[in-house]
């Protein structure tokens, strides 16, 4: 495969490496992160479901703008992605 440009961004305080042209959710998957947010009602974790922008399960706050679908939004250098999962310990993974 052709040489691809590395992109660095932050997800809930952690630096993540991705490749140019990848949506946020794909870069997170490649770094072993599948849980993106927490359900406001049940507290259950949520991640990608439809992968195509229909379900909004993958939403996060991107550079201060809430409700952004991470399956449709491409990563950019120094992008700050946060969600209500910040600080939640996941003892299972």
């Amino acid at each position, binding site marked *: 495969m052709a040489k691809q440009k590395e992109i660095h961004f932050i997800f809930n305080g952690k630096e993540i490496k991705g490749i140019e042209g990848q949506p946020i959710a794909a870069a997170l*998957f490649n770094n072993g992160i*599948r849980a993106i947010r927490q359900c406001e009602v049940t507290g*259950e*974790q*949520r991640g990608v479901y*439809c*992968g*195509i922008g229909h379900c909004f399960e993958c939403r996060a706050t991107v550079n201060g703008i809430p409700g952004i679908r991470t399956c*449709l939004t491409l990563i950019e250098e120094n992008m700050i992605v946060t969600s209500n999962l910040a600080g939640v310990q996941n003892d*299972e993974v």
Partner: protein
Amino acid sequence: MMKCDVVIIGAGPAGLTASIELALKGLQVVIVDENYRSGGRLLGQLYEDRRKKRVWAGKIIAKDLADKAKALSVKFLFDTSVWKIEDKKVFLSNEVVKVIEAKAILLATGAIEKALPIPGWQKVGVVTVGAAQTFTNLHNVKIGQNVIFVGIDPLSISVAIEMKHAGVNVKGLFLPPTTNLLNQKCNPKEVLESVASAAGMATNPIYRLGGKFVHGAYTKLLLHLLKYKQLKINGIPIYFRKAVTQINGRAEVQSVNVRSLKIDGEVTEVEKTLHVDTVCLSGGLLPLIDLSQLANCVIIDIPELGGFVPLHNEHLKTTVEGIYVAGNITGIEGAQVAMAQGKLAARSILREFNLSSENEISVAFNEIEKARILSPITFLPEIRKGRQIMRDKWEEYLKR
């Protein structure tokens, strides 16, 4: 307000092909798509037939079509949803362009996936078969280590094979439980027959099902045998006699409960646990018709086409003046058919501008059946019957 000759909603294979055909004749065309790039469902398609060394790489086909369209000055508006259509005006979610007024509108919005709500389906690690396809083939991401599919149909079989090629351990395809009232296709016999006839109709270079399935009277016998013997496609077990009844895991998927099915689909008591980290749900596809409803097109239910679809003539004109349809919005078929329909719809539109002949229209019409025959995947076994019903309903509509 922006003005143009034709506005196309959906930059999938149908919309892209139509845009090229229209722009070649000098029309001003704008394509609107809510995704960040063009290609629609074509983007995730990647089949390899190693024996024949044939590859269908949707990403590349989509790029070629988009490049051609751009070279012909077709204008693209991405990240933009259409939310209303009224009197040849299309209303957009775009900050800059809020309304486009066009002389003709082509709806090429494609299909959506039906939900398959089995207990635990909201957990992290449960995705639709479409998401699995997109992440595997387009984003080159392994969405899990140990994966199963719930729902046995041509799409789940095809995506399972693609994932296995990508190095994922695909542990098998299962049925959803029969108790799931939202989905009737969980009776082993019906599912086997439907997969067998879809396999028998298409040329299927991909999953070479020939010989694996037996038609008619033999299906029952085969189902009996399948209780003891597994059926495998490309090394992936297909469990026509097992259903996934529950997905478990505290935060993320850790296992599923599997129960055997009687031939009529009744779930038995014995339950086994299977350790997996990812579940792909395949509940089938539905034409995405919301915009045709908003535009007041007459809608009819033709199960052979996949459900409710806008009524249209064989040249893809709807009941509303100036509104045309192409691709999966007219019924669930493969990408080649969507492209052929895009061309036909464009020529029908060009007819309104006196820029195409009856002959050009009939040539494009005949190309649809050719594309159908060549399609490597057949979603609905009775698609031709569905198309015929549509023609009959249109005749009835004209006589009303």
